[in-house]
C-alpha cells in the first residue's frame, strides 16, 4: 500500500479567482479555468509563498490523501471535499515537513489515536517557513529560570521576528536550526521547541515569542540556544502543530498537566486566557511537577496568577525533607475535583512533558474515572475525538 500524502488544495467556494497565487507561485503549480483555481500536486513544493498573498484564505487548505486529487477532480468541484479517513494516517496534518510531522506524531502518540484540535480552536498556520527558506529571528532576551546552584539549566529565550510575519498559536512549536554540520558533514536538522508565549507576542503587539529550553548534556541545539546572547540571530522554521491548541471558548476549563519544560505551552495558554478574559473564575487547573521548587520554571510568575483564576498543584520529587511527589500523586490527591472535571463536557485535558510521565498520569486518571464508574479508555477516546484530550511528550 502506498503511504498517504499531504496535498495542497484551494477551497473553490471561497476563492474569488484573482489568480494572485498563480502569479506568485515560483513552481507554476497553480493554474485555472473559468471557474476554479487548482494546485498541481506534482509541482507544489509547499514553499508557502502563495499563502499570505491570498485575499480570501481559500488557499490555506490541506488534505491527507491516499490518492491525490487530480487537476480534473479539482476543476469539477464546487465545494472542497472534507478530510476523509485515510488508512495509514494516524497523525493528521501537524506539519507539511515530513521529518517534523514524524516528530509530532511520536510526541502525540500517548493520546491513543488520532489527535484532533478543540472544536473552537483558531485555525493555525503551519510550515510557513521551511528548511530551505527559514525565517531569521533576533534574540532579544535569554534568562535563566532555574536557581543558580541547580544543575538544571532552563532558559527563557525571547526571539524577535522584526518585519517577518510569524503567526503562532499557543501550543504550537517552532524549529530552530543549529548552525554547523553533523558528524557526516550534513547541516543540522531543526529541533522543535514549544512556544511559551501567547499569539499576540511575549509582549503584546510585539512581533516576538518566547521559548522554554532546558540545556541537555551534549545537546547540539539546546546548548546553542541556551548560549544565545541578545543580538544573535537564529534560523527558524515552522510554526508546526495543528491539534495541541487551546479552545477559543472562554467557558472551556483547561486541565494542564506537565513536568519541567512541558510547562511551555501552558504558560502560553495561561497568558492568553489572562489577556483575553482576566476576570474569569476557576478557568484553569495546573498540575506541575519538578524535582525541586528551585527547578520549576516560572515558579515566581506563577505565584502571581490568582488561585481563583487558576488552581495550582505543584509536585516535587526531590524536595529536601519532603516525601517524593509526582504529578500523578497530585492528581490522586485532588481526585474529587479532577473526577468532577473529567465528567464535564467543557473540560479539555493537556499532558505535556517527558514521555516517562505518561504512564503515571494515565494510571491516575484511570483510577479517578473508575471511582466515578467510568471506563477511562472510553472516555479518553471520546474526549480525544472531540478535541478535548491532548498529549505532547518527548
Amino acid at each position, binding site marked *: 500500500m502506498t503511504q498517504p500524502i499531504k496535498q495542497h488544495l484551494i477551497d473553490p*467556494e471561497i476563492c474569488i479567482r*484573482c489568480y494572485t497565487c498563480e502569479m*506568485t507561485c515560483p513552481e507554476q503549480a497553480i493554474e485555472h479555468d473559468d471557474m476554479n483555481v487548482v494546485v498541481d500536486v506534482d509541482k507544489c513544493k509547499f514553499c508557502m509563498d502563495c499563502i499570505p*498573498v491570498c485575499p*480570501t*484564505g481559500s488557499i490555506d487548505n490541506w488534505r491527507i490523501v491516499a490518492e491525490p486529487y487530480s487537476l480534473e477532480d479539482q476543476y469539477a468541484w464546487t465545494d472542497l471535499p472534507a478530510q476523509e479517513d485515510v488508512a495509514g494516517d494516524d497523525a493528521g496534518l501537524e506539519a507539511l515537513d515530513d521529518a517534523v510531522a514524524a516528530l509530532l506524531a511520536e510526541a502525540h502518540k500517548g493520546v491513543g489515536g488520532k489527535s484532533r484540535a478543540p472544536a473552537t480552536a*483558531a485555525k493555525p498556520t503551519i510550515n510557513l517557513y521551511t528548511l530551505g527558506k527559514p525565517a531569521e529571528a533576533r534574540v532579544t532576551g535569554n534568562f535563566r529560570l532555574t536557581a543558580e546552584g541547580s544543575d538544571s539549566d532552563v532558559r527563557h529565550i525571547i526571539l524577535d521576528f522584526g*518585519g517577518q510575519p510569524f503567526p503562532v498559536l499557543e501550543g504550537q512549536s517552532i524549529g530552530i536550526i543549529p548552525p554547523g554540520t553533523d558528524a557526516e558533514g550534513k547541516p543540522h536538522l531543526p529541533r522543535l521547541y514549544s512556544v511559551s508565549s501567547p499569539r499576540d507576542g511575549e509582549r503584546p503587539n510585539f512581533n516576538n515569542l518566547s521559548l522554554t529550553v532546558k540545556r541537555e548534556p551534549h545537546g547540539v541545539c539546546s546548548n546553542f540556544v541556551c548560549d544565545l546572547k541578545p543580538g544573535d540571530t537564529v534560523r527558524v522554521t515552522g510554526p508546526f502543530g495543528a491539534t495541541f491548541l487551546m479552545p*477559543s471558548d472562554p467557558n472551556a476549563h483547561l486541565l494542564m498537566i506537565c513536568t519541567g519544560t512541558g510547562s511551555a505551552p501552558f504558560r502560553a495558554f495561561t497568558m492568553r486566557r489572562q489577556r483575553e478574559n482576566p476576570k474569569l473564575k476557576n478557568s484553569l487547573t495546573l498540575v506541575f511537577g519538578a524535582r525541586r521548587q528551585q527547578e520549576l520554571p516560572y515558579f515566581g510568575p506563577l505565584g502571581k496568577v490568582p488561585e481563583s483564576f487558576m488552581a495550582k498543584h505543584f509536585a516535587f520529587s526531590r524536595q529536601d525533607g519532603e516525601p517524593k511527589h509526582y504529578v500523578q500523586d497530585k492528581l490522586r490527591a485532588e481526585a474529587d475535583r479532577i473526577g468532577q472535571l473529567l465528567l464535564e463536557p467543557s473540560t479539555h485535558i493537556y499532558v505535556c512533558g517527558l514521555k516517562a510521565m505518561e504512564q503515571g498520569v494515565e494510571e491516575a486518571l484511570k483510577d479517578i474515572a473508575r471511582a466515578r464508574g467510568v471506563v477511562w479508555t472510553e472516555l479518553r477516546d471520546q474526549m480525544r475525538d472531540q478535541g478535548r484530550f491532548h498529549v505532547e511528550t518527548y
Partner: protein
Amino acid sequence: MLDLINVSYDTQIPNNVGLSQDKKVLKALEKWHPGYINWWNDLIPQNFQQSMVYLRTAVSVDPKGWAKFDYVKMPEYRWGVLLAPQVENRTIPCGEHYGQPAWQEVPGEYRNLLKRLIVIQGDTEPASVEQQRLLALTAPSLYDMRNLFQVNVEEGRHLWAMVYLLHKYFGRDGREEADDLLRRQSGSEEAPRMLGAFNEETPDWLSFFMFTYFTDRDGKMQLESLAQSGFDPLSRTCRFMLTEEAHHMFVGETGVGRTIERTCQVMKENGIDDPFDVDRIRGLGVIDLPLIQKKLNLHYTLSLDLFGQEVSTNAANAFNAGIKGRYMEARITDDHQLQSDTYVVWDLVDGKAVQKEVPALTAINMRLRDDYTKDAAGGVGRWNKIIEKHGIDFELKLPHEAFHRKIGVFANLPFDPEGKVVTGAEYDKGLPEWLPTHADGDYIQSLMKPCYEAGQYARWIAPPKVGIDNKPGDFEYVKLHMA
C-alpha cells in the same frame, strides 16, 4: 546596499525605492505629504479616524511580507511606496520595441502619453475613497467596516504609488499633476474626477459591493495592462498594486454573494419560492434577487464605459509604443506586435449590433473589455450557485454590452439587456425592470442601519464563511472610538 525587498522606515514614507538616498524626490514627497493627510482627515468622519482598525499593512514586497495584520488608526497607516522586485533583464513585452530592454527612465517620445496614463490611473484611486467616505456610518458589521477601510487605505496607497512616479520621473509638471490629484474631488462641479463612473456617489453597501466587484475590476484590468508596460517602474508599481487589488475583488464578490445568500435563506425560511414576490421579500427586510439583477446591470454597464471606444487609436498607440500591454501579455503566444492580426469587435450596422473583424491593434480596448467580461462572469456564476443551492429558480446574468451605454458605438441607443433594439416607448417601459428605480434606492437605503456589535450582522446580509486573517466569528475587527 539598497534593500529592495524589505521596506525601509528611515524616512517619513515607508518605501523600498531607496528614498532616503534620493533627496530630491524625498523632499518633493514630503512636501506633498501634509496635503495628503489633510485630504484624508477631511474625508472620513473623525470617530472612525480615531478607531483602531484591524488592517493589513505591507511590510515587504516579498510574498510573505505583504500581509501583516494589526490594529492601527487610519491616519497613522503606513502609506508607502512599494514596487515589486525588479526582474533582471526584463524586456519590453509588446509593440514596436518588443524585445528591447525595458526602460528604466521615461522615453522622451512617450513622455506625455505615459504621464497621462499615470494621471488617469492616479485620479481613480482617491476618487473611490471620496465616493465611499460615509459608508462606515451604515456598516452592516464591524467585519464589513474593516473591509471598507482596508479598501480605502489601499486606494490611498495606490495614490501614493502614482504620485511617486509623477515626482520621480516627470519633474515639475509631474509635481503639478500630483497636486491636482488632491485638488479634484469626486462629484465636484468645478473640479470633478476625470472618469464619469468616479463621480457617481456610492450611496449604500450594495452599491459599494457592486462597485468593488465591477468597477474595481476595471481598475484591476487597467493595472494588469500597465503591469505589462515597457516602462519598468510603472510595471513594478502596478504589479505590487495588483496584489492589493485582489482584496477589493474579494470584498465585492463576497459582499454581493453574502447579500444573495441571506435573501435566499430568508425566502426559504418563510416558504417563498417565487423570487418575483418582491413585496413579501422586501417585507422581510432582505434585498430581492430582481433588484440585485438591476444593480448588477447598472454597475456592469457603467464599468464597461470605462474601457473607452471599441476601436481606439490612442489604445493602439499605447500598445505599439510598449507603454501598455494586454491582459496577461506574457502568456499570449503571438508576435506581441499585432502587425497583421485581426480582432472581433461590436459595431452598429443599420441600427443593429453586429460583430466584425478589425485590425487587432486598434481593438486593444475591446480585447481588454472582453477579458474583463470573462473575468466578471466568473463571480456571477458563483452567485448563481448560491441561488441554485437554495433551490430558487432565478439566474443572474450580465446584460448585453449594448445595453445602457454612454460611450462607444452603442452610446445612448435604446438596446434592451438582451441586446435587442427596442422602441423608445418599450425602452421607457422596460427601464424600471432593468435598472434600479428611485423607489428601489429608497428601499435599499431603508435597510442601511449600522450594526456595530462584534460578530453581529445586519439582517440583509449573511456572515462571511471565513474571517479575515483566520479570525474567529466574533472578532472585533474595529474597536470603535465613539467619543
